[in-house]
């Protein structure tokens, strides 16, 4: 099966780890397409999201001094096993591509005609999305099977943004869903759902998110194998059992106050709450 990876940037740890995982599974990749980090729109968006100081810090760590000695730690510690390579660590998709021998391309917009033409040349059966733009129909039609996304929540109950946080607050088990992408937000056909057993042990929300990403990368082999063997087939979300068909299960970026409440459901948060109630 020819698999292509879409990444949010050349320096995306998730994209790097996914590419390594694919290579180790003997499934390509046939190519990787990443968004350019240095374009005005992305820069302005990141400034809007993080602020100038944080963007400057990010640029310094990623561009000016890409951890010169090749040592150090991954932002997501659960990906380190995959990212470790010959005493160093993969820092960019270029390095992974060089080692595993697959082509790489950089674009400003994954939906642009150039990017789509490039993807078509790679003739993928499956595109694995690890981040980037909201994908348009033209791109979604490129792969033979579809564009696969690992959503950090159980569909169809929790779709949209901040899924792990909303799962904790809503009492829906924390988990991941492999699904094909369509024009909606996390509304495409579901391939497989996995509940994540380790949520209670997580120390923080970012720890939970990191573990879920690693969990998704670990499970992708099973899903691709299932697709090849035909043991997994896509199930339309509207055909799944739902208490109310009209229920809108879209969630949005979570506010900091609610995020803090969600963290209270994690192991560390619960311990702090119990301690406060004992001492208070």
């Amino acid at each position, binding site marked *: 099966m020819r698999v292509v990876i879409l990444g949010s940037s050349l320096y995306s740890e998730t994209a790097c780890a996914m590419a390594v995982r694919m290579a180790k599974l003997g499934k390509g990749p046939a190519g990787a397409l990443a968004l350019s980090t240095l374009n005005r729109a992305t820069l302005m*968006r990141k400034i*809007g*999201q993080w602020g100038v100081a944080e963007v400057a810090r990010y640029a310094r760590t990623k561009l000016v001094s890409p951890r010169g000695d090749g040592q150090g730690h991954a932002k997501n510690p659960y990906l380190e096993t995959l990212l470790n390579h010959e005493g160093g660590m993969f820092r960019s998709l270029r390095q992974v591509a060089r080692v595993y021998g697959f082509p790489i391309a950089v674009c400003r917009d994954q939906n642009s005609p150039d990017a789509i033409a490039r993807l078509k040349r790679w003739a993928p059966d499956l595109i694995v999305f690890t981040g980037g733009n*909201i994908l348009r129909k033209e791109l979604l039609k490129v792969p033979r099977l579809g564009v696969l996304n690992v959503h950090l929540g159980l569909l169809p109950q929790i779709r949209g943004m901040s899924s792990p946080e909303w799962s*904790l*607050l809503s009492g829906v088990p924390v988990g991941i869903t492999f699904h094909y992408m369509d024009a909606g937000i996390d509304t495409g056909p579901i391939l497989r759902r996995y509940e994540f057993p380790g949520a209670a042990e997580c120390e923080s929300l970012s720890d939970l998110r990191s573990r879920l990403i690693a969990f998704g990368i670990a499970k992708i082999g099973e899903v691709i194998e299932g697709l090849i063997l035909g043991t997994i087939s896509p199930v339309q979300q509207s055909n799944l059992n739902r208490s*109310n068909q009209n229920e809108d299960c879209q969630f*949005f970026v979570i*506010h900091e*106050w609610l995020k803090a409440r969600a963290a209270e459901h994690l192991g560390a948060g619960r311990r702090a709450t119990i301690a406060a109630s004992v001492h208070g």
Partner: protein
Amino acid sequence: MTSSCDDRRANSDGNAMAARMAKAFAETTGLLRGPQRAIPLLQKLISDRLRITFEQRHLYSYASTKRSSEETLNALLRWLLNAQRPDGGIAAYYSLLAGYSKSYPEVTGYLVPTMYDVGRITGDGRGVVAAECAVQWLLSLQMATGAFPGGLHGSEARPSVFNTGQILQGLVRAHMETKRPEILQAVVAAGDWLIGVQQPDGSWSGPGAYQDAPHTYYSMVAWSLAELSEHAEEDKYGIAAERNLDWVLSQFRPSGWIDGINLRGHPNYLHFIAYVLQGALECGILRGRKDAIQIVSRSAWILLRRFENNKYLPGNYEAEFKSRAHYACLTGNAQMSCVWLRLFEMTDDLRYLNAALKMNEMLKRLISDGGWRGIDGGVSGSSPVWGGYQPLRYISWGCKFFADALVLEHRLTRSLQASAFGALPCAS
């Protein structure tokens, strides 16, 4: 009959246009009378121009601020205290061109509960004193029929259904707080007048209604009557409130859009749409009408999705919530925050709370901190300030609704934190 109605309508349209032009002229010449206002005007125009030039809205982020709700409530109260006129009424607005307006009975009335609440939360006793001064002034305005006049103080002698309803809300609260018998007399007289002029279909139209037409945003009047019914333990007011509620609910399309705002010569500002939702929701809650809560939630959800996806709500709408407006009506935003917070309280759907918290953050960033009297702590009609709704003005009802939203946020977040915060259902 029809032709005489049309003549009267044309005549009243002509008069309204002339009045608007006279107002605009008076306002634009305001700078000649107070040239010192040119400095804050320029400051505001430049700062808003810069803000909209560099503003970045994105799906994955929302505007946030370190400014606390308590600090913002103090700023809003400061603005309201500055806007209180010597007669006890609150000015409708502070114009960047012409300064403070005269006292505005309608807004003074429904600011009373806000001033009590904000005074309590901030521990600033001046809020309660200001509320009581305002009530004293309002009592002096009541007409023999029980109605209150429309427009700014002294501008209109005609009784107004909407103003009476809004003032009723303040007086009911004032009676709860003070138990003064003359306030009870006033609220009963106002309530009786409202019932007396209600149409058989539950709406209010004719001479007491704005432009003589029925309006769905008079659901705010129904809310006041429902409050009066509960407070006075007199069901006739509640029945009248529900008659209006039924009429208002009949104007909601299945798509969530609301017909019957009926303001000739004005677009459907978010402020009026939010009025309809707020009035119908609160009346529905008080009367135990689950159908009202459900119908309102459909429209509120559409606006919530739009706000979440675009990080912005346009200031006015055409049918089916289409909009080409490039400004925000801040009052409408604050009202939507109130609606979402109340819907969260009713449904336990945390997405309503989430949207309201973000809306409040956005509004906090737009409140002036310090600076000139009339601007400090004020909520402008539009953002940018030259937008279509109340351009170049800081308006008292904007302060009112934003303060209400923060008071609600304060209450709900505290009670949520106090409870164990178990998992809540998130169903719309």
